[in-house]
């Protein structure tokens, strides 16, 4: 990796926005059904809030949608005018367990990551670190899902399948209400 700081910031924004925009498309076109590297099935969808951004410098323009997937109208309209997702709330579900997090395109920082509930009361004789280890297991599990999807996106984006995917994405963006 030999890029300058400015170039890296630019590449971060390009990759992050392209990924989150693709993630929205991927989730909607599969009814939210995704699989991780172990073949485990999850439901993944974008929720309130989704922010799309376009332009640069003073001409930078942002649309924010707060609402369920089908109601993210402002953001969908933004996509049609060439904007991309630069921040999204991602919800992941498996059986009765749910995770949610706000993901920023420019740096992949995670804010408000919520895992399935962990029982905080330590029983007598129990390892005092058991709650911590369970919580970290749950946090890493959700990160693994996001990482798997990012790798899947990169392989598609840099591989021969991308033209077909791009064509499907364009149709999806134009068909959105």
């Amino acid at each position, binding site marked *: 990796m030999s890029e300058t700081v400015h170039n890296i910031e630019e590449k971060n924004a390009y990759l992050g926005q392209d990924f989150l925009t693709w993630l929205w498309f991927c989730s909607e076109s599969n009814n939210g059904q995704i699989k991780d590297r172990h073949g485990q099935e999850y439901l993944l969808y974008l929720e309130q809030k989704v922010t799309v951004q376009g332009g640069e410098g003073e001409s930078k323009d942002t649309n924010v949608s707060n609402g369920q997937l089908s109601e993210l109208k402002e953001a969908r309209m933004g996509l049609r005018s060439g904007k*991309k997702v630069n921040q999204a709330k991602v919800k992941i579900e498996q059986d009765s367990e749910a995770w949610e997090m706000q993901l920023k395109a420019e*740096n992949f920082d995670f804010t*408000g990551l919520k895992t399935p509930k962990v029982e905080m009361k330590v029983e007598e004789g129990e390892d005092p670190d058991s709650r911590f280890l369970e919580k970290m297991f749950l946090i890493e599990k959700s990160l693994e899902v996001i990482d798997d999807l990012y790798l899947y996106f990169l392989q598609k984006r840099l591989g021969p399948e991308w033209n077909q995917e791009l064509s499907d994405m364009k149709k999806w963006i134009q068909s959105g209400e």
Partner: protein
Amino acid sequence: MAFLAQTSSFCRYKLVDEVSREFWQEFPEKLLEHKFREIDNTNEERSFGWVNIDNMLDVNWEQSPPYKGEFAAFALRLDTRRISPAVFKKHFRLAWNDLLQKKQEQGKKNISKQEKNDLKESVKNKLMGYTLPVPAVFDVVWNRESNCIYFGSTRQKVKEIFEELFYNSFGLHLNNLTPYYLAGHMLGEKYRDALDNYEPCVFV
């Protein structure tokens, strides 16, 4: 511990360097070498260092060790004194008036630029002594198997302090797993050119 809260905010890092087997034997000592030092009884503006993740007052890991299963878990404590601008303005004016009076008694009319800067510094130092530092604690969780590190802040300035202290303590470089670096770690050298020349998609 922030990572135990219902929701947590953090960024991710990956070690650039390899970790030797001996490293983990020396690790507790390295933590202690850069442990947090209190500044309550000084007028220092800022202090930062490592503390026990279970108790920010425990700087010697007496309550619990820094190892939890496959993780090393500790915390960055950052204490900062902040002077309210209104308080500073008032005390600077008072000091200015005093200095001006002394100057006039000496038959001088003006306060030089250098004297003004010195006055600012001395008022700031005086007020620092009256202000208690505000403590802040940021969790650090290091997965020793994957060498992935989770740091409990997304604020750029705090991240910079963490990265510098981490290097000074352990002699190891970190990559913040932003989209570009995460892609590099996932895809390896084969895709380096493709990532360096990445152009944004045009969706419409």
